[in-house]
Each structure stands twice: as structure tokens, then as C-alpha cells.
């Protein structure tokens, strides 16, 4: 089983909320067999179950705080989330998932990184990515690749 999980979260029917899914979908071809790419719309405990068995995981998702311009990319460790992103139920879920996994002694990744991209419209069914988010997509993909490469001890290609 591959050791690294790249998890794209979101809903591909909902405009900018698709961005996490689109980012990892484009990476699927490029990453080696040491990495699994999963697209998911799950939440909570169901989401927790996806992490089991991996050593490391990177989560790519949309976030809407209204505090940053759409397209802004930020990186977090789960420990940062309570403070930084608690108003989002999705992210607020991650620390809880981790606590639960620890308590249940699940085989859980020892390192989890979260790449969050600020989005604009994420409620219109069938809408395309907004321009700012579409523009930031290659940068988001690049950051995921860099993280995976760092974990594999390789220098990312320019």
C-alpha cells in the first residue's frame, strides 16, 4: 500500500468548491505509485476512515473565511486549525478526527498537512471556477507536488 495520501476534498458540482478535487485529479497521472490520490466529498467520521493505513497525508480543500482574497493559498498543520479556522465545520472536524483516531488506536498518518485555498462562489450548482481561483489552481497543484516531493526526500523539479 502506498505510504502517502493526497486527498482532494470538495463538491465538484459546486463552482469553486470543486477546486480541491480538480487539483488532485490533475496530479493523479504525475505522482508515483508511492502515493494514492483520492477525491472525496465525505465529512466527519467517514472522512476519518480514508486516512487509515497511510504514513503521511496532504489535504487539499476550499475554504471560505472572507478574510483573504479568493485564490489565496494557505498551509496548515492540524494543530493550527483550532485557532485559525475553527469557524469552518470541515476544518474544525480535523482535530476531532485526529483525537478520535488516536483514542481508537487507528493506524493513522503521523504527519498531515492541509492546503486551503480561499474561494469565492461555492454555492452555485454547475458553476465554473471563479477567475481568481482558476488562476491560482496551478500554484496550488505545485504546492501539493512540492510537499509530496519533500516527503519523498527529492528535490522538486523546477
Amino acid at each position, binding site marked *: 500500500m502506498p505510504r502517502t495520501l493526497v486527498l482532494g*476534498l*470538495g*463538491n*465538484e*458540482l*459546486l463552482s469553486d*468548491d470543486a477546486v480541491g478535487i480538480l487539483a488532485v485529479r490533475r496530479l493523479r497521472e504525475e505522482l508515483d505509485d508511492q502515493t494514492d490520490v483520492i477525491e*472525496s*466529498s*465525505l*465529512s*466527519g*467520521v*467517514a472522512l476519518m*476512515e480514508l486516512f487509515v493505513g497511510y504514513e503521511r497525508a496532504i489535504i487539499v480543500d*476550499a*475554504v*471560505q*473565511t472572507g478574510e483573504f482574497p479568493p485564490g489565496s493559498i494557505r498551509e496548515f498543520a492540524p494543530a493550527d486549525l483550532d485557532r485559525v479556522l*475553527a*469557524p*469552518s*465545520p*470541515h476544518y*474544525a*472536524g480535523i482535530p*476531532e478526527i485526529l*483525537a*478520535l483516531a488516536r*483514542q*481508537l*488506536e*487507528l493506524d493513522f498518518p503521523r504527519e498531515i498537512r492541509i492546503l486551503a485555498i480561499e*474561494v469565492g462562489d*461555492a*454555492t*452555485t*450548482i*454547475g*458553476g465554473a471556477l471563479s477567475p481568481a481561483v482558476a488562476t491560482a489552481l496551478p500554484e496550488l497543484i505545485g504546492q501539493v507536488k512540492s510537499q509530496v516531493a519533500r516527503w519523498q526526500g527529492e528535490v522538486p523539479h523546477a
Partner: protein
Amino acid sequence: MSRTITIDPITRLEGHGKIDIFLDDKGEVEKAYFQVPELRGFEQFAVGRPAEDMPQITSRICGVCPTAHHMAATKAVDDLYKVDPPVAAKKIRELVYSIFFVEDHALHFYFLGGPDFVVGPTAPKGERNILGVLGKVGLEVGKEVIGLRKQMRELITLAGGKVIHPVFGLPGGVAKRLTAEDQGKFIAAGDHAVQFAQFSLQVFRDIVLKNPKYVEAIVSDAYTHKTYYMGLVDGSNRVNFYDGQIRVVTPEGKEYLKFKPQDYLAHVAEHVEPWSYIKFCYLKDVGWKGFEEGADSGVYCVAPLARLNAADGMATPLAQKAYDELYSTLGGKPVHHTLANHWARLVELLYAAERMKELANDPDIISPDVRTLPTQTPTEGVGVVEAPRGTLFHHYQTDARGVITKANLIVATQNNAARIAMSVDKAARGVIKQGKVDDGILNLVEMAFRAYDPCHGCATHALPGQMPLAVRVYNRNHELLEEIRRDG
């Protein structure tokens, strides 16, 4: 001074539930409103797409119950092409659907409803979470829940093609047959699920029913509404999740309506309120009389307790016993206590497990004949299933090529929207006195709608049960007076 209190989950995306509470000059609740989001734009999105894509597309509406949308859409395309699937295909679908119910109901009881009922409605909020549930029922049970869900998901993957979004439903059948080897796995898992369901009912008896305070909360007037109830029933008026006729009983428990899914528009109508973008479903035959209880008001309710109320019993023996126990304990049918949904959910968990076991052992299940090819020119189709959260309607109209010209979906939470709004209003009136609003209100008001397990507009990312909430108190001039938050 008149004040407005807003309980807002500050969700980031996908829509959210929100509570606005308006206080009068004396600080008493004038009216409380619960708002749930709708599938905005979905109908337009569907137009122009081939109908046979709908099972795949609609399963992406919701990260919580994709299997329910997939199944309703698959049945709608059966109806659209006027094609009757072979026996094996229907049984495979129902088998997968039963497994989905086992998985979903188990999750809800322990992880979502558990904080209210296993840990307890009056426990400190720091304990009212899944870790608190584990503290009470033991770590082993938590591992068992996770283990059971893993086993169920693997089976759904085996039969459904993909776990999160099944892809096996086709007009006239399913894409894949089951082999004898597959069957063995389903049989073993069925036994496991039945044991687990019985164990869960025992947990409920031991922890909830033996605690007079919990029972008091369940039967308290604050969480009671006498409304109509709706659910799918089989030919003997027993609960069925996958197929049947839609039955409605009165607040007194008498059969009021029984109709085919295709006739739903004759009986279900939608009411619009200026303060909400959701349409409130009501019974056309009774009429909209506002957010009122009783036989003169068309407000009705779906989801586990409603299904039990709308039926005459369960189709499997152990679940029937559990059904009888629920009604004899709570004073006969129908039961109007919203919080009894948690118990009803466990009765259904046992039924789903037993049904899964029955179907897994059925010789038809491994028949290779799993598809009837459609030959009719499509015009219109309706598919209805019971989603874990209640009756789910999919209705498509197409041109002669099967391309959607019109789509209408009614999700479970829309059916329940009026009653949820009434529950929140009643709970708020019960806890807010003379303008005093404290942290306790969050849980008591939340409990009122959490029992329905409302699917927040198919809010794929909301972590249900840990929904961050804020109560905002405004004065008449919309100036913020105070804010109480609970962040996940």
C-alpha cells in the same frame, strides 16, 4: 426592546442551517425560525443532460447520503423508460441499500446522536462529543463501530462499483451481478450487522431507558409535536426503505393517504415563506395552515420515527419485537416525541441488518439476469426511496431522446422543514426567558433539530453533530448586543 438572536453555524460552503430568534420587548421569544438550505440551481443544472447520467450526478449532491440519491435517481430512470428490472437486480439494489442504512444509522446513533443521548443532554459541553460517547460505552465499542462500517463499505464497493458514489444503478437493473463467492461475504456481514444492531439496542436500554432524566427529556412537551407522518410501506403496510407505496397517517395514527410515488404531486405541495428560501412541504389534501400541529394542519414529518408511525410494523422478526417495545414503552402509536427518533433509528438499524441478511441468503441474489433493456420512448419518471433522513423524491421529464427538460427533487429535510421549524421555535420558547440567553440554549435548541438529523442542504462538509454555532443577539436596530459561539 425587541431583539433578534441568530444561531448561525458559520459554515463555509454548501449551504447551512441557521436559526433566527426574535424576542419581544419583554425578552420573551416572539418567534424562532430555522432555515435549511436548498439545492439551489440543481434543477437548471440537470436540464440538457441525459437522464441516465442522473444516478451519477445526483449522488454527488450530497456527501452524506450519495447512495440514497443514486437509488432514487436509478428508480426514476426505471420509471422514465417504463422498464421493470429483473428480480435479482431489485434484490441487489435493496441489499446494497440495506447495507447503506446499517452503516448510516450506526454512525448516527454513536457519533451524531450519541453526544445527546449516550453522554446525555445535560452533560457539560466538553463531554458532549464522540470522545465522551466512547468514554461512556467503552473504547471497544468505538472500534467495533469503525470495524463494522469498514466491512459495510467494502461490501458496498464490491456490489456498487465505487464506495462513496455507487455507479451500479442503470435503467432496468444493475451493472454487475454478484457471484457465489461474493454472496458468502454478504452473508457473514449480515450476521455481524444483526448482532451489532441488537447490541446497540441494548446500549440504548441500559444507558438511556434506565435513566429517568433521559426518558423525561424524550417525552417532554418541549420536544413533542402532533403532526401527520409519511413513509414508504410494502404491500402489508410494513416499513420499506427501497420500494412501495407512500403512506400517510394522521396525528391520531389512522391511515389518511396511500399513493404511488408517481402521484406525489397530487398530495404534496410546497409553501413559501418570505424569511426562508426553502419551500415547506405540506399535504395538499389538508392544506397549509401555518406552522401548526394537529389534524387541520398539513404539516407532516418523515425520517425514522415517522416511518415507524406511518407503517403497521416491521417486515423482519427481531425488528418487529423492537418496534413493539418502543410503542409499548412510549404509550402506543403514534409517538409524537421528536427525540424518540434516536430510538426509532435503532429499530430501523436492526431491520436493515435483518433485511440485509435475508437478501444475502436469497438464492436469487446470484442470478446472472440483472438487466432488462429499456425499449420505450421516455417522457417522465418518478423515483422515491426512503433516505436515512426521510422520503426522497426524484422526478424527471425528458424529450424523446431521454434528455432532461425538467427535474424536481424533494429531499428529506424539505419534507421535515416545517416541523423542524416548529421544534426549534418550541425549544427556544422553553429555554429563553426574560431575555436570558446562555450557552445552554445552544444545546437545547440544537437537540431539537439534531434528532431529525437534518441534511444541511446536502452540506458535504459539515461535521454533523459538531456543527459550530453562534448565537447572535441583536436589538431592534440590528446592532449586535452579544454573541455566544461554539466552534465545532
